């Protein structure tokens, strides 16, 4: 998977196995990719897909069991000290910090671990806090900060050493819409103005679609699709088909058997007495076949219309369908 311009992160045939009770568990299975300087690169995947494992390897927390990875030209396995000088990371789930000191002191402490002079560090902390809307809360003890401000402080920490590459794992998880939006704006600004490369692992399709230049969809340790969000949506061919079906149904398994249906999601609205099905189809013929398949089950299609597939629908089409196929293979 290629990038344009200077390459910041390069991964080749990366593999990681963990000891299991029986056979080893493969978390990463031959992943290869290139990420360019100043690019925001999204890594999408379901739980256990290998996103966090990849970030742990790239940030030198974990050794690979096969393949290699380089960050700014330094090998993560053999030159971890050099890699650490140019990276940083943050995880939305952790909100890491020492509770007994203030947010500012937390940031100062980490700046010192990078050997940054205090005056420079304080200036940088103030700039980052300004950008992240954290300034008013800098002197509060870390435990006294709300989830959103703890998260802003965590993000600020990830940029305190002015890294060339930043790894973010679910950076806006659990945040309100406005906070999440301000963090996204900050990340875009960092990539655009400072040419920082950001690798963002996320479940949040809207977030990835909104800020990532390119995306890799990873499942069962393998990259199953990659490209710009637009390319991925376009690669699935025709726009999505939306159908409102009555009476409400819990399952639409008949759609799995329709040729040209790449994936679907369904939700039920009891109050309206119908189910809404979003289907990603390859062709117009497949859309008609899907509608017919539903009708053959004795269901009434109240309304149907076409729309552009979202990244979420692409994800479901690739990952959701993939799961089913594998489950069927496992049964066989």
């Amino acid at each position, binding site marked *: 998977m290629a990038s344009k311009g200077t390459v910041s992160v390069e991964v080749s045939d990366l593999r990681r196995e963990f000891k299991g009770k029986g056979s080893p568990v493969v978390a990463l299975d031959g992943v290869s990719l290139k990420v360019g300087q100043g690019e925001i690169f999204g890594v999408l995947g379901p739980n256990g897909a290998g996103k966090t494992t990849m970030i742990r390897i790239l940030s030198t*927390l974990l050794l690979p069991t096969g393949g290699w990875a380089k960050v700014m030209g330094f090998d993560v396995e053999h030159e971890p000290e050099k890699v650490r000088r140019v990276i940083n990371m943050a995880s939305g789930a952790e909100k890491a910090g020492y*509770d*007994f000191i203030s947010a500012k002191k937390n940031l100062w402490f980490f700046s010192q*671990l990078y*050997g940054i002079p205090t005056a420079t560090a304080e200036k940088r902390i103030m700039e980052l806090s300004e950008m992240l809307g954290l300034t008013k809360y800098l002197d509060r003890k870390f435990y006294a900060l709300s989830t959103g401000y703890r998260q802003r402080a965590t993000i600020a920490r990830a940029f305190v*050493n002015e890294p060339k590459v930043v790894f973010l794992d679910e950076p806006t998880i659990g945040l309100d819409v406005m906070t999440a939006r301000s963090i996204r704006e900050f990340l875009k600004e960092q990539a655009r103005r400072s040419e920082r490369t950001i690798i963002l692992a996320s479940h949040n399709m809207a977030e990835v679609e909104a800020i990532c230049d390119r995306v890799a969809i990873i499942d069962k340790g393998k990259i199953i699709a990659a490209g710009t969000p637009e390319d991925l949506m376009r690669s699935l061919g025709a726009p999505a088909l939306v159908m409102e079906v009555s009476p409400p149904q819990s399952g639409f398994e008949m759609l799995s058997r329709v040729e040209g249906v790449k994936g679907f999601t369904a939700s039920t609205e009891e109050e309206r007495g119908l189910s809404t099905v979003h289907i990603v189809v390859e062709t117009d013929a497949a859309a008609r076949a899907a509608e017919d398949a539903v009708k053959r089950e004795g269901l009434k299609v109240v309304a149907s219309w076409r729309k552009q597939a979202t990244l979420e629908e692409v994800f479901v089409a690739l990952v959701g369908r993939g799961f089913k196929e594998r489950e069927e293979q496992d049964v066989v």
Partner: protein
Amino acid sequence: MTSLRPILASAWMGIQHDIAWTTPVLSVALRVVAPFASAMTVSIIYWFGTTSASPGLFNADRLAYVLIGSTLYAHVASYAWVPTVAIAEGKNLSVFPHIYITSRSTAFYVAGTVLSSFVISTIASVAALILAYLALSSFLGTQIPATVTLTSVAMVAAALVANIPGALGLGFLLGAYSMYASKFEWSLPGYVAGLLMVFSGALFPTSFLPWPISVGAQYLPFTQFIAAAREALLPGTSGDYATSMGLCLVGGGILLGVSMFVYFASERKARKDGVIDRRLA
């Protein structure tokens, strides 16, 4: 300076960890309780045992020996815990992996936190020694011998400094373990401290131990540190001061070298096994 920053910042963090939950005075005062209680307990047991067994058995020099040894032992025991707590707590607060991926990584952090505890426990131990000395003198109504001059105090201070490599060595050795520990990490420093009470000559000369344990115990840097400090305050009781200082520095240096090797090997294995960012139970 760039290498000193992470150590000083980690030392500052260690001090904050100890005092930020209350006022500095109260925090240090509470830190004095353990070494004071330790010194009082062993001293009173010695006094009670000897005076109960035979009226002429009590020896004020021996009481001073036990008093100084138990206080200095408490000093060693208190910083044995620090790397374990720093790593375990760091993992539970999720900060340890972020420290690990900084350009200086965790060795500077461990060194800084050990040094902070070293300083705090030195203040606490010295205060405990003075308080215990005064309390026992008053309670037992006896003059406990001690040579307290500018020279002897300087000699004790020099012994404390000479013990820093050994303190760091113990810190890295226990830190190597806590890189992996899941549930027992809180217990290990206690076991180590318990062993040191027996093997460091805190309460009785190491020559009392069976051979070859007595030989091994004799060359522990902590044994030599206690011997040097005790010799400064009680001349003629614990061998030659200069020899003890030399052995303390050499032993501490060897321990530090071996511990660093073990620590980095453990860190590498932890990275291989993926436990650097694993939380502890």
